[in-house]
């Protein structure tokens, strides 16, 4: 018993001050929201889209990067002879609308909307229980969602908890591209959550299939099964990106 108390004193208080204080430091090599410099981007060049493993880059009248498909691997910025594409340290990537994940050349104007509508906010704003379904996720998105429950992040201080039964949940947080073999499991879990309910898709796989997009064995993300209320891009998203998404969803920051 004495050992436990001594260890407790040694470990100290470790819950981060964010969001009332500064966000935890991100590594200098962190790859956040991509940025396209319209001055540097040459029209007619497809070097970036050719090397993209996630088919995230569309070259038409201008270059667009779909963060929902982006694996944040930086192959595009390496391939660009003009250095027109760079990855910023902007970690706030989550959005309510799928099209808000499309990055166009130029500076980001404002953060994309993530807030729930008033009716749902009134119900879930101070208490949100989520059932997590891993549907062919590689365990990276799962692990960095799980980490939000540890004392460092302490998700429960915002009234957000992951629960063991869909019957106790207000929504489902989905990771993975949704394998054909998990489709039924996901559908049944979603059906078991009482109305009204929300869906959060975490990671490139859950948004659009990630590296597994267009495999016959997967359903290319949660969108094709259920209506998604919040998209959290990344491969996997940093826990701070997930937390920011949840807090903006609930209008807490």
């Amino acid at each position, binding site marked *: 018993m004495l050992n436990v108390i001594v260890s407790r004193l040694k470990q100290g208080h470790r819950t981060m001050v964010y969001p009332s204080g500064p966000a935890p430091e991100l*590594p200098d090599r962190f790859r956040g929201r991509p940025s396209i410099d319209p001055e540097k981007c040459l029209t007619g060049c497809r070097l970036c889209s050719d090397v993209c493993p996630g088919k995230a880059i569309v070259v038409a009248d201008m270059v667009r990067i779909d963060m929902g498909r982006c694996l944040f691997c930086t192959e595009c910025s390496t391939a660009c002879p003009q250095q027109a594409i760079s990855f910023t340290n902007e970690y706030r990537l989550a959005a309510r609308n799928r099209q808000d994940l499309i990055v166009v050349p130029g500076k980001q104007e404002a953060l994309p909307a993530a807030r729930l509508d008033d009716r749902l906010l009134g119900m879930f704003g101070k208490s949100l229980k989520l059932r997590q379904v891993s549907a*062919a996720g590689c365990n990276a998105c799962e*692990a960095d969602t799980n980490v939000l429950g540890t004392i460092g992040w302490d998700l429960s201080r915002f009234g957000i908890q992951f629960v063991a039964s869909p019957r106790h949940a207000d929504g489902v947080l989905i990771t993975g591209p949704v394998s*054909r073999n998990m489709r039924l499991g996901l559908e*049944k879990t979603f059906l078991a959550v009482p109305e009204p309910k929300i869906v959060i898709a975490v990671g490139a796989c859950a948004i659009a299939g990630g590296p597994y997009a267009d495999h016959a064995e997967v359903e290319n993300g949660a969108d094709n099964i259920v209506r998604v209320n919040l998209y959290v891009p990344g491969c996997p998203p940093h826990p701070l990106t997930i937390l920011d998404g949840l807090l903006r969803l609930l209008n807490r920051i």
Partner: protein
Amino acid sequence: MNHEKLRMVTLVNGQSVELDAIALLAPDAFQTVVADAVDVGQRVASLFAAPARQRGVTQLFAVLVNTQLSRLHIVRTEIHGGQYPSLTNRCPQVHLFEREIAEQYGIKPVGHPWFKPVRYHESWTGRDAWDRPAGEPILPGVCDFYRVEGDEVHEVAVGPVHAGIIEPGHFRFQCHGELVFHLEIALGFQHRGVEGALIGGPDARSIHYAETLAGDTTIAHTTAYCRVIEALSKCRKTARAQTLRGIALELERMANHVGDLGALAGDIGFLPTMSYCGRIRGDFLNMTALLCGNRFGRGMVCPGGVGFDMDDARVEKLLRQLDAAEKDATVAIELLWDTPSAMARFENIGRLPKQVALDLGMVGPAARAAGVEVDTRNDQPSGVFRFTHIPVSTYDTGDVFGRAYVRWLEIQHSIQFIREQLHTIPSGDILNRAGSLLPNRIAVSLDEGWRGEVCHVAITDDDGRFMRYKVVDPSFHNWPGLAYALRNQQISDFPLCNKSFNLSYCGHDL
């Protein structure tokens, strides 16, 4: 055994040879070689099928690990038609491999004692080993489960969706009261078709498949993938790149081991260690992010070396973070061993005898905890581990405590290893770009991931593209061990046993 006579090809970890160098054995000679090798202490790292040039013919390849000689042996045979006599009865460790071959290529292992699908998908050849009608949907987890009958026997089914934030799998327990007679595990829910998609590669996606084969084992799988590419393109890595790979691999091991020790504490309701370790795990993930910007090491390892270099400031910072994490981890984890009520829940739970671990061909900490001295870093060293040896951590109880304690021993060795390496990182470049792959060759690469041996085998075609790419995650060897460990245990101890193995679903399901 006369290797000369059988013309068994012998190579070292991370080497490639011409496909033609591997003599074709007759099917019965092939089986004899594999079974005899296992009898004298070798292990089947991989057994898989691949197409042959002739239509209607399938090749079988076996990769044997010879720990004593630190060498790998490859043998092959051809199967004409849709069946061959099963080897499983003579050599239990191939049971899942034979089921996998049947599922992928539609070839029946006649006489297999436990013949059912592994991942629940259609075969790649149009031939079905279970004679299921074409076009009929294949439902995951729908098969004959082993059943115990009796008045007071009941069955408990769990999953695929579990209570926590965890990957899906289906577990069937045959119970008598609280006592588990038998557990059967049905997986395949995570099947994403990775091996099939790798055929025809390498392409832009190949390395991302490697990085996400098991997302918590990114460094080990990607290193194994890259070493296959390097072997097939005769690309030489620099010493600097190999050292940085080794550092990343050990950081990955520590993050997962610390996280699991915390989760084990959580499963017995010992909250202090659970809380501390959950956070300290993040400290190790952040060290990986310091190297490459990503907590799971995405982008760190690439064909020909590593994607990110080290500088003095980064070395300093990493050493500081390592010191702090070591201090915290020591306090948090030793608390477990000092608390009798915690130890009482670890000791004698989920016991796996050494002989069973050997028979099942188990690997990694789960095997080492049962007294099996097996560690790829030591037995088949590659990269930096050829120059710096990490002691093999073993224990002899084979129970939850053994599996937990081996993790702690490994954490300590890894910290020491990284500290040494950080002081002596060789100078030079970090990347020698790998060129195109040589045609008609086979390469094998083994790596000691935190769960155990990661095995990648690639075979190239006439154009130097992947004709077959075979991945074996350590979980593939170890899931049956978990099922065995549950025998005669209380069903309420399942979460604890499960976490002490902490096997990968997606690594198994591919």
